[in-house]
């Protein structure tokens, strides 16, 4: 896929970074503000936005860096 310039994996990395940051950011806010206690969502005490958002962000960073434009590989 290198002859197309930017790899699809880079696009995926960018999207996951954006989504991961948004969801992790909100989850962190919800955790520290205590808003999760009044949430209608089941199992909100597990703080899924924090670890799921963190996971998306980590994956996004991996793909974003690994397949960044100009890097051969």
């Amino acid at each position, binding site marked *: *896929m290198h*002859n*197309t*310039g*930017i790899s*699809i994996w880079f*696009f*995926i990395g*960018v*999207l*996951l970074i*954006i*989504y991961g940051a*948004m*969801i992790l950011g*909100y*989850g962190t806010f*919800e955790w520290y503000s205590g808003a*999760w206690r009044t*949430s209608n*969502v*089941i*199992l*909100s005490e*597990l703080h*899924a*936005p924090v670890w*799921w*958002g963190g996971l*998306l962000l980590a994956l996004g960073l991996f793909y974003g860096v690994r397949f960044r434009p100009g890097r051969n590989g």
Partner: protein
Amino acid sequence: MGALALNAPSLAHLSLLDLAVIAIYFVIVIWIGFYLKSKANTSEEFFMAGREMTAWIAGLSFVSANLGSLELMGWAGSAYQYGILAAHWYWVGAIPAMLFLGMVMMPFYYVCKTHSVPGYLKLRYGQGSSTVAAVSFAFMTVLMSGVNMFAMAEVMKIVLGWNLYFSIIVSSLAVAAYVALGGLRSAIFNEVLQFVLIWGGALLVPILGLIETGGWSGFKARLAHNIQTGLVPAGDYTHMWRSMGHFADNPMGIHWTGIVFGLGFAISFGYWTTDFLVVQRVLAANSLRSARLAPVIGSFFKMAVPFIVILPGLLGLVVLQNADGSLMHLVGENVVAANPGAGLHSYNEVLPLMMVRYLGPGLLGLGITALIAGFMSGMAGNVSAFTAIFTYDIYQPHIVKHARDEHYVLVGRWVTVIGVFISIGAALLVMNAAGIMDYVQALFSFFISPLLGVVLLGMFWKRATKAGGFWGLLIGTLTSIGLWAWVKADPSALRYVAISPDAKDMAENMYRALWSVSTSVGVNVIVSLCTKPRPVSELAGVVYGATPLPTEEPVPIYKNEWFWTAIAIVIFLALNIYFW
């Protein structure tokens, strides 16, 4: 804009964060279309993505084009209704066919350098069979795209309260833009992106569901308790084959012969090996090895899809609750329609209901984006396949035969836009006459199984002739239509078509496909034996035994397609044995 978008009470309420997640998704997919516009200048680039896709990209796109959101929600609903039997459509109904495509059929598709399945028929049987297959496929593809578009818009109305027209127009114009700009490469790129989003948005639901129920064994214990206390209808929800001994033993009204030969062969092989919607993705691979490996890679993900589709449906049986804390009972669409205002939800809403249960702001937007992405990947698959078939197999041989390459690319771009508008028209047609939907879905099944018979004989029997292929395809299709019409006119005929008075609709589809492919093969054989075959020298590249397959460079075992096929077979067998 808000008034245009929202017009009904909804299941879920999206926050600004959720809306931002959805909006960013649309920006990215359009951006990809614009970015790839400069890479889609020749017909090979526009229609075949330059045949530059790696095995991973082609494999993920291959599965993603099939993974529409209706499929996600529909099969989750079926799992709630029928239990794990629904997983047959992901395992025996897909994996053997995908592996067969990669290991056995792909060399012929790839070596003859065809651009489409009708293109293969032209090389093997001549223009007649090719045109019949191309016209029926093109017609059915845009019609199906429209039906899916309407069904998706209806889901968006129920789940989010969005106006039907708003959902249809926004999502279809986005698809039209990125496919018309970047061609198949753009469709494939977006399908891979959408595949990642589907997993990212939907995977959390079964994980949290299993945590809530105490794992698989905890789920089974709660389900058994609910069945014992009459809260859930009695039945075997967690085994796939035990209740297949007789039609009356399972809620689907299916026998194992129908599952194995009807679904596992006639329907599954027909779809996965001859439906251009999926085959087109593999034809875009950058080498024969990649083309063979792509369906194998796809098979692993296909086997995993029940985790995000079937499992949430099953978990819904024990975790979904009404506002008063009682167990929620989902019902059929007809019951919901007959009781407006009763607060009932249909089986098909189980996945969105599970999302609303577990996903808060941001994550819910990601889940809804997964559903939209599923719809758009399915639609882009339909539109890009329609564009290639119309331009290569209808326009080029019958309308403008010898034009410059740029002309066909321009035609492809316009046909993409026109295809989307025909789909919108079909969606509006279905909106005003919902009964049409059942007919359209049946129509699609008429062509796939007979085509399988013709392609298989053409590929593996040198004696098959042009007349045999044409009459096999035609009479196989007429058999399918005739059996369908017979049962429609006289429902008691089901006992003959599906060989049991206890058979139900799904069994009818399977046996109809089986009779249809058998007829297609039988007619093809008889007519071929009565007509003059082509010399073997003319069959090089298209028929087994007349095609020298290129030898491939030796690779380490972990890159070998046969190794991964063996692993896929072992996992496939293990899953079926575990859930026997």
